[in-house]
């Protein structure tokens, strides 16, 4: 009986659009230009079309997209963090404190909080950078809970009630477009970064860190840099949300801010930042649409996460990318 196998071949247009040959005709140019243009157009146009409630959801989506992309970046370096909430919470509290106690204006607190939050998180996680794999994940899992308990126990920075009556960002259009711009900058920035030399070294740290050490590169310094970048982006998200809702409290360290970025990245496709972006644009509006069922949302994210990581680990974006760039056909196996 003749057996069949599936053969995957690059599409003709992909081959024709490699390198400088993309300039030969408009078809090739469009093939390359259209996919990156989709998120740009989407993020530019959506704020104009959405009603007020869904605009807040849009901002939330962009924030989670930033958190998911920064998680993905950290995974590309080899550190899986189960606690993005740490970065988010530290940034939120940093901006809340700068606003509440020092009365700095919003355009100063957000960048300062991003950098300060990044520094604090990196300093905290510095001792555990030497550990591989699972231990880093465990520590990132417990540190946000630790902070939550410390704030609850000592009552500093507002304790269980949190800090209220902080300054808002002001203009609604600014609120929408600044975060959209940040998300796009992160998306394209990370993609560019990972194909540059620096990104290759970071990926090498994930694949075989002793080889990188053997090449006389200081992996601790590289890991610290990667952690700082991720932590700063997480802190920016926290600071932004603080000023959006004019409140910061213990919920800034909630488990939700750790789980949803991971779920977005896993659903969308780990390793490609566009996957995390896509994943968050699927999961966050979905969770808002399901808001009526309350606590069941976390159950649904968790189930999504489990189903995708076990059954469809490559994620949606990898699948879409494969379909876009290659076609498959059945061929008979030659004897």
């Amino acid at each position, binding site marked *: 009986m003749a057996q069949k196998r599936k053969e995957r071949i690059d599409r003709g247009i992909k081959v024709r659009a490699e390198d400088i040959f993309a300039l030969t005709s408009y078809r090739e140019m469009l093939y390359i230009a259209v996919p990156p243009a989709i998120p740009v157009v989407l993020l530019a146009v959506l704020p104009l079309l959405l009603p007020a409630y869904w605009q807040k959801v849009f901002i939330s989506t962009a924030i989670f997209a930033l958190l998911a992309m920064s998680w993905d970046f950290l995974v590309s370096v080899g550190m899986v963090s189960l606690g993005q909430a740490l970065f988010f919470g530290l940034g939120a509290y940093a901006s809340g404190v700068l606003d509440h106690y020092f009365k700095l204006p919003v355009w100063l607190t957000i960048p300062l909080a991003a950098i300060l939050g990044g520094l604090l998180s990196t300093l905290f996680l510095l001792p555990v950078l030497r550990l591989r794999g699972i231990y880093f994940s*465990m520590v990132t899992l417990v540190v946000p*809970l630790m902070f939550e308990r410390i704030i609850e126990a000592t009552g500093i920075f507002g304790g269980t009630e949190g800090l209220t009556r902080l300054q808002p960002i002001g203009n609604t259009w600014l609120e929408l477009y600044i975060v959209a711009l940040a998300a796009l900058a992160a998306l394209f920035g990370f993609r560019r970064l990972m194909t540059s030399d620096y990104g290759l070294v970071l990926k090498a740290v994930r694949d075989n860190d002793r080889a990188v*050490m053997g090449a006389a590169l200081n992996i601790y310094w590289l890991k610290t840099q990667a952690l700082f970048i991720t932590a700063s982006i997480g802190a920016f998200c926290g600071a932004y949300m603080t000023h959006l809702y004019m409140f910061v409290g213990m919920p800034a360290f909630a488990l939700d801010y750790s789980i949803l970025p991971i779920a977005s990245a896993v659903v969308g496709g780990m390793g490609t930042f566009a996957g995390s972006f896509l994943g968050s644009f699927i999961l966050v509006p979905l969770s808002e649409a399901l808001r009526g*069922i309350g606590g069941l949302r976390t159950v649904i994210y968790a189930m999504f996460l489990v189903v995708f990581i076990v059954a469809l680990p490559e994620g949606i974006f990898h699948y879409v990318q494969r379909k876009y760039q290659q076609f498959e056909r059945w061929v008979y196996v030659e004897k």
Partner: protein
Amino acid sequence: MGKNSQVIFHTIFTGERLLLEVTLIYGFINSVILALVALGFNLTFGISGVSNFAYGALYILAGYTVWILVNQVSMPFAVAAFLSVIATGIVGALLYRLVLLRVRGQIISEVIATFGVGLAILELFRFMGFTGFEYTLPPFSDGAILIGNTYVDHQRIWIVVAGIGIAVGLYFFTHHTKVGLAFRGIAQEEKTALSLGINSDFMAGLSVAFGSALAAVAAILVLPRGTISVNDGYEVLINAMAVCIVGGLGSTPGVILAAFLIGYAQMITDVLSGPHWKMIVSLVAIFVILVVKPSGLFGKQKELEERI
């Protein structure tokens, strides 16, 4: 719980010698509770090398199962407890078969997947409204005995007896029975274990099932102290993790020692500073041991691979 806190209050205010005695005795009991809770987690994660971060959820699942069987199906407590242990073991085995088997070996995926399942179970209970003061399990026997000058209720005595029994039993199980030795073998060097005829996938599944059953046993012993609350699930997971990491993954004596260290540390901070700081102790302990000696106090495996 009310009677015990009154007892503690009374004894604290009637002299420092009594305070020391209370701290010693209740610290001992707290340590045994931590050890009991950690032994199941140690069996899967430490001894067999399979991450099961749904442990806290399985603990709470066992507690609620007993509650439902006793209160809504009106079974006698002993039967309900027995059924719940079996049921939790089966849930653990299912968890392995459906989720863990496909991601075995990729530790990060195991952690994320099992943590997701645990989260789903816990939040499902919270959503279904299983919170409130009526969710309690009956203790094995009522009454209290006098040790020195402090009263200790019978349930706590049962906990200590059972804890010691389980710890000793586990030690013998993992060192002198075929199945226990197989568990250790698959964690040490899986390929060698396979070549010796040990079905590593099946053994890993058994260890997840046994660990879950142990979680159920711990739940039935410990939960009668107070109400069953969903947040206990997260606390149990973190405490179990803390004890196993500090003690060293895979070594039962290490787990016992770590349980005592953390148990007494928690008790002392509770007496000195208040209950808020109790949880922080386990978290700080994890942090400190990972910085100073990541393989734990008595850990033998993987010491070189952990650090760079």
